[in-house]
């Protein structure tokens, strides 16, 4: 194994030194997708593969004049497995660029390996510090950090929805903590108060206990759930008769299209924020949604749009470097300097490798008999630092359960 890796790195280094020669051979580009096709996260992971395959098919499996071969790894959503499978993609399938992984924990587990193998990575996972205080030079993210969508929503709640007192609730994982922290910070800086905060275990079977404790003298509740948890929470929320009392608003994964298609009228009117909606009106997205709907009979959501976006980023970067993916340094430099129109709107990257792009405030409506996230407001070109100066933002600790401190919690 170690021999393999050494040989790989040597080979890669040689390729970097002699880019023209290896490029001149005209070999296909070996593209890896690290996703999840089994276990609880499989729904999003399968969408990731479907959208990427669709993109490649639309381009006739050729990007910047070179054929593309796709290799797919399934981590089952288990971080350790993700690390092993990534290594397998690199050493056995000899991929040159990886799209993925899906989840934050897997991204963190693979971080060291990405560095040591110098693996070009276009990621979907949201872990903040991978593009902030501990930036990985080979890691670029075209989706968003955990709080990148929550911070604009907080401003929207305070300024447009005129909310004063709010509750935040999320899964008890880094993703949930980071989202709530960003939301709380911006909401309180705009004159609001977060008076209650709850983090429920990722696998809590029943939210009854949490619902029974919710304060009722508030204007809104922010839901920072991932996967199917937002869906289950809202159903139970409705069942407890809370829907009309306290307005729920949601983070980027709370009411994804994948969840919406199984929901009923209880979801109507709920406002969420995300870097994507199947309802975004631009020619690229309209083509994407139409193609995806035709093939799979449902709207693409967060995960499908993620790989479709990353594929567009890859495509544009390859055009820029004239297909020369063997020059890794040159590729990374190019990724971070391109501007590309994608299904989510215009995309570019900051010097830390994170996306700067539109964030959409969306509202659930019924259209042609199905529920959709209609875009009601657009925050253009939002960076992971929101309106803060990057240097000052990075001086603070990473967003967590306790930072910034929640100062206005009651009882």
């Amino acid at each position, binding site marked *: 194994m170690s021999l393999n890796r050494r040989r790989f790195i040597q080979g890669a280094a040689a390729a970097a030194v002699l880019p023209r020669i290896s490029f001149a051979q005209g070999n296909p580009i070996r593209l890896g997708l690290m996703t999840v096709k*089994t*276990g*609880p*996260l*499989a*729904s*999003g*992971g*399968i969408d990731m593969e479907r959208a990427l395959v669709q993109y490649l098919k639309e381009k006739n499996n050729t990007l910047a004049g070179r054929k593309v071969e796709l290799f797919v790894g399934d981590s089952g959503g288990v971080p350790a497995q993700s690390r092993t499978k990534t290594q397998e993609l690199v050493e056995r399938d000899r991929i040159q660029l990886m799209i993925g992984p899906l989840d934050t924990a897997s991204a963190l587990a693979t971080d060291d390996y990405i560095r040591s193998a110098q693996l070009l990575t276009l990621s979907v996972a949201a872990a903040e510090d991978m593009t902030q205080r501990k930036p990985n030079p080979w890691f670029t993210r075209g989706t968003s950090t955990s709080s990148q969508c929550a911070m604009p929503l907080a401003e929207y709640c305070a300024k447009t929805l005129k909310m004063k007192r709010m509750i935040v609730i999320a899964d*008890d994982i880094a993703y949930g903590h980071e989202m709530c922290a960003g939301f709380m910070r911006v909401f309180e800086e705009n004159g609001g108060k977060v008076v209650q905060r*709850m*983090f*429920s*275990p990722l*696998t*809590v*079977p*029943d939210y*009854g*206990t*949490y619902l*029974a*404790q919710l304060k009722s003298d508030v204007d809104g509740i922010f839901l920072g759930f991932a996967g*199917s948890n937002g*869906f*289950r929470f809202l*159903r*139970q929320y409705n*069942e*407890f*008769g*809370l829907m009309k009392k306290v307005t729920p608003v949601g983070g980027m994964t709370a009411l994804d299209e*994948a*969840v919406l*298609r*199984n*929901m*009923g009228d209880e979801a109507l009117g709920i406002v969420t924020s995300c870097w994507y909606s199947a309802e975004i009106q631009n020619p690229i997205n309209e083509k994407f949604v139409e193609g995806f709907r035709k093939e799979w009979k449902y709207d693409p959501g967060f995960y499908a749009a993620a790989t479709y976006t990353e594929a567009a980023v890859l495509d544009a970067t390859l055009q820029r470097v004239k297909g020369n993916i063997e020059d890794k340094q040159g590729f990374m430099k190019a990724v971070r300097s391109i501007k590309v129109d994608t299904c989510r709107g215009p995309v570019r990257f900051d010097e830390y490798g994170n996306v700067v792009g539109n964030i959409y405030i969306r509202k659930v409506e019924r259209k042609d008999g199905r529920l959709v996230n209609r875009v009601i407001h657009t925050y253009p070109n939002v960076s992971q630092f929101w309106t803060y100066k990057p240097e000052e933002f990075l001086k603070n600790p990473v967003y967590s359960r306790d930072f910034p401190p929640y100062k206005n919690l009651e009882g």
Partner: protein
Amino acid sequence: MRIANLTHGALYMLGAYIGVSVMRTLPNLWLAALLSGLTVAVFGGLVERLILRRLGGNVLGQVLVTLGIAFILADFCLVVWGGDPIPVPTPAFLQQPVRIAGLAFPAYRLAVVVIAVIVGIVLFVFIEKTRLGAMIRAGVDDRDMARAVGIPVSLLFTTVFCLGAALAGAGGVIGGPIMSAYPGLDADMLPLALIVVILGGVGSLIGAFVGSFITGFVYTFGVALLPDLAYVILFLPMILVIAFRPRGLFGKFAA
């Protein structure tokens, strides 16, 4: 029956999914629960007859086999029903919250409590007061002696195993309107069932009853008072019981 069975989470999930499918053609929750329970019972019976039967007394083997079956069922459900959460509709007449002393209780949850109590009482009467129940108890206590006096222990055990599977399957459907059906439901439910059984004591209905009460209350109040320690509060009582009273509160054998 002295079988360490870890498939109950998976059977619960399988039940929920079968219920979902039944309700697509027959939109009646109670009927779906019945049919789903029957289907899962047949499956449970096959597992007992074909596999667990050969592993009598081999606890480690039982744990591995049942855990393996649980994983296989989980992926089977993923293949058949996909990865998205599927809601189970609440019966129309139980959709509105009930107001008691100014507090809103979801009517369906109250109905589930009532169903659980009825099932519990029926089981208790069955095991403790009927001739069949006495035969089962005899089989569990001393299998060879029970056989010697002419009790068909083998058949009885299969029946009991089916009954357990049926309850898990029907439970999945009845829990559906609260939990819905989703991948991972099995792993969410199994620890709760294990805690209840170990806390209350293996082989004791009263133990399971008391165990579920303790678990429910400890968890609910624990989450309310110390929300950051939700899992500690859930598992700590179980660890204490195992440490100081290995057979559980009312158990006959060591867990």
